């Protein structure tokens, strides 16, 4: 019974932790602009992150090595240093965008001014990460992030459009209109990349080591990755469908993160809107912790410092200083008034370039029977792994040209 409870808790946590500001922005915006037509991109992104999360969770459980150690071992010091600099810069930018999102959500809930909200947000995160054990932090934000389910409820309330839903699952051009081809592709790249952000696998694998996973945890890892992420994708699809059903009809381009709440308010009223804001607060709050810790984990693992929230604070001093500095940096970025939505768009698109360098070492190790023994990838996962590696390479090559051609999807 306890085992079932633990697995359920893990799955629910994964569902709540699935959505971050990048998914929120790209899904709602894509829905408002292209209706249901980009639902397939959510499926593609979800299968990709499920395969690679499961792989790196398995590696963490079997050989107890996090992703960045593999990156360093496989790519060598110099290349790994380049990947470290690029991925840290992008994770820190993403962290700043998520901090901005939490600040706005807190303001909308309480009515307090921007600066007070920002100070409260940063102080809150520093206190929580400093004091609470890893498992509590992960479960708290994951479970409360499940409040995002209110978007699914609002979506069901607006009615089920089966035909459009099925059409959206197969890649189709908007009304055969070739002028919309590049913006359509830009949003497709944005949606797939926001599901497969590198920080997600860094955090997942280091989290597995924080929680001292062993091969006995592999069932939890399989189920959490497969069921948790699939259910998380349903939330992401709900955001897109609401964007299509509400904002496309009212001709609203949801340029601001909190605009999505209007769609819930229209269906479920004031309390629906409050629950949606709380869901956003905790879902994005979870992403603040994931991005900030993922960067600190990578830096510590690269320089071989002692790391982890499970360690005594004085033993992992450099690691602890790193995550605090990342939060403080995010504070200053948001303080100068940079729009979190603009910031996350750039972070998602530029992160695509780091994807092949992050996923290749995971695939290599997970495929290797000498390292993984009987836990190495089977035939199907091997094929899927390579297919997805090919997909992320195409994404990496096309993301920036598409961003330039479409003025970040605005044309």
């Amino acid at each position, binding site marked *: 019974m306890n085992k079932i409870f633990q697995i359920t808790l893990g799955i629910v946590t994964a569902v709540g932790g699935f959505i971050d500001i990048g998914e929120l922005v790209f899904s709602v915006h894509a829905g408002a602009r292209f209706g249901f037509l980009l639902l397939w991109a959510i499926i593609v992104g979800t299968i990709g992150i499920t395969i690679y999360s499961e792989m790196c969770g398995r590696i963490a459980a079997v050989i107890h090595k996090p992703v960045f150690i593999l990156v360093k071992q496989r790519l060598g010091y110099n290349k790994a240093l380049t990947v470290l600099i690029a991925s840290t810069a992008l994770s820190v930018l993403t962290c700043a965008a998520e901090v901005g999102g939490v600040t706005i959500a807190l303001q*909308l809930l309480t009515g307090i001014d921007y600066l007070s909200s920002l100070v409260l947000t940063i102080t809150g995160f520093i206190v929580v990460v400093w004091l609470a054990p890893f498992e509590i932090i992960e479960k708290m934000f994951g479970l409360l992030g499940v409040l995002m389910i209110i978007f699914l409820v609002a979506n069901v309330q607006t009615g089920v459009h089966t035909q459009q839903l099925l059409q959206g699952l197969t890649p189709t051009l908007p009304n055969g209109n070739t002028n919309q081809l590049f913006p359509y592709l830009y949003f497709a790249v944005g949606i797939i990349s926001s599901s497969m952000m590198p920080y997600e696998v860094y955090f997942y694998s280091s989290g597995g080591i924080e929680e001292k996973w062993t091969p006995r945890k592999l069932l939890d890892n399989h189920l959490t990755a497969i069921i948790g992420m699939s259910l998380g994708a349903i939330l992401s699809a709900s955001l897109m469908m609401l964007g299509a059903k509400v904002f496309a009809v009212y001709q609203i381009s949801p*340029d*601001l993160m909190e605009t999505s*709440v209007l769609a819930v*308010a229209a269906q479920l009223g004031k309390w629906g809107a409050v629950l949606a804001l709380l869901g956003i607060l905790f879902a994005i709050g979870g992403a603040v912790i994931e991005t900030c810790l993922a960067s600190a984990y990578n830096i510590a693992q690269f320089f071989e410092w002692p790391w982890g929230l499970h360690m005594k604070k004085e033993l992992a001093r450099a690691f602890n200083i790193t995550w605090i500095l990342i939060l403080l940096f995010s504070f200053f970025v948001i303080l100068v008034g940079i729009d979190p939505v603009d910031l996350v768009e750039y972070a998602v698109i530029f992160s695509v370039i780091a994807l092949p360098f992050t996923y290749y070492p995971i695939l290599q190790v997970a495929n290797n029977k000498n390292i993984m023994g009987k836990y190495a990838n089977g035939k199907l996962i091997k094929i899927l792994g390579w297919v997805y590696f090919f997909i992320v390479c195409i994404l990496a090559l096309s993301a920036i040209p598409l961003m330039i051609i479409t003025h970040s999807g605005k044309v």
Partner: protein
Amino acid sequence: MKQLRKVLFIAALIAVVAAGIIAFVENQQKVDKQFLKEANTNLLSYTNETSTMLDLYLAGKLTKPYLKIHTGYLNKKTLNLFEQITTMDVPPTYQTALHQTEDNALQLSQLLSSIGTKPTPDQIKKQRIQLEKTKQQLTQLQKQYE
């Protein structure tokens, strides 16, 4: 013969440069038109969003903090757009359209400021009517850019 070649070369050079200049100017005008169209579309979107928000608030479906804070962010976006429009240098053909877009942006911004400071039901009903007028102007203007 040599001179003829020279003349032809210079003529070709002039033609290429002239074609380049014409293409550049045309492209610039397209960019200007594109920008004005984008700005107008954004303003229309903010107007629709504000109307929807006010309707929801009047129906008791939104909280006051949400209304006040979100209005503030929409105003910030509108003002950013206004600044971009005012600093834009457009050819005479687009001057009138530019000024109309500028006026609409300013109108919307003033309206958003007043919603943020006085969100009383009576005031909001008046602002809602005003928004409808702005929306009509923007829709009219949008047709010019199509």
